[in-house]
């Protein structure tokens, strides 16, 4: 049986691709030739004839090299990341923040609840801008669509959709604890229940709303 891997490697010598990329192309093409060779043998064709038939798959290896080079030349990674992640992510965060400002500017009253009782008489308050939350699924859907249209992998789509929740997440897990430690003006007696309520209202709820729009677009479009 011919060593297809070696044969393809020799025929593609000089192919102007990066080392890893070249190795993958060689392995893939050799696998194809081997599949075809085995298929011909299974049909009862002799090894010699099968080898000849398989080699007829490529009449001009020079032309194939040239076509592979032009079709695999990578565009800059930055361009791809921009279209798949950064652009949809910044658009979703811009829209989410703009809508929040508009909702506040228009004078919509937030829904304020003291339903969650805290220890020792503290009563954490949840402040929820419902009109803003209602816009988030649409923003998540837009981020998912733009990211998916650019051929982004699932993680990039997910990250683009969730991006507007990131500043609030950063505030609650980094900003607030840092402020409590460093800033004398921030009350040190913030109850853990108040922290959790704030986290739930400003991180978890927006994240769920964004995903409610983004995931259906990603999986069903």
């Amino acid at each position: 049986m011919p060593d297809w891997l070696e044969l393809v490697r020799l025929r593609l010598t000089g192919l102007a691709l990066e080392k890893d990329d070249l190795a993958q192309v060689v392995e893939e093409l050799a696998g194809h030739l081997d599949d075809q060779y085995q298929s011909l043998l299974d049909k009862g064709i002799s090894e010699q004839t099968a080898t000849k038939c398989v080699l007829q798959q490529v009449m001009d290896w020079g032309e194939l090299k040239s076509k592979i080079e032009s079709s695999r030349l990578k565009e800059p990674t930055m361009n791809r990341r921009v279209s798949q992640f950064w652009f949809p992510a910044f658009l979703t965060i811009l829209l989410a923040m703009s809508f929040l400002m508009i909702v506040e500017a228009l004078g919509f009253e937030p829904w304020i609840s003291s339903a969650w009782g805290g220890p020792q008489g503290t009563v954490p308050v949840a402040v929820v801008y419902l009109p803003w939350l209602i816009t988030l699924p649409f923003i998540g859907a837009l981020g998912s669509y733009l990211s998916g249209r650019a051929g982004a992998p699932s993680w990039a789509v997910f990250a683009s959709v969730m991006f507007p929740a990131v500043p609030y997440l950063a505030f609650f897990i980094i900003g607030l604890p840092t402020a409590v430690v460093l800033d004398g003006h921030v009350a040190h007696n913030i109850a853990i229940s108040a922290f959790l309520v704030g986290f739930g209202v400003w991180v978890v709820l927006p994240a769920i709303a964004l995903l409610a729009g983004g995931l259906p677009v990603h999986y069903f479009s």
Partner: protein
Amino acid sequence: MIPPGIKRGTAELVVLSMLQGGALHGYEIARRIEQETNGSLRFTLAALYPMLYRLEKQRWIRGAWETGPNGRRRRCYRLTPAGKLKISPLRKDWSALFAALHRLAGVSNA
């Protein structure tokens, strides 16, 4: 107006349509095309892989190495959301070409 590059577009439509049913590796794509067209359409290695790489570069398909039960690695291609969106306009272009040929030369799919 039938767009230029319709011939290439038709080949792309064939490959994208094959991948609508799920992920396939290159040899399987070529085998199924030949099988489902009763041998009328054949993609040699030299024709198939540059096109697969081009489709991948255009982000219409995505390739990923998968290891089969026999331990052999194969690069399987699947449609991206962008690829799924591309199929419909390609089909429309192809239908326009076929209708034009039908009017001019009486070519039919009967």
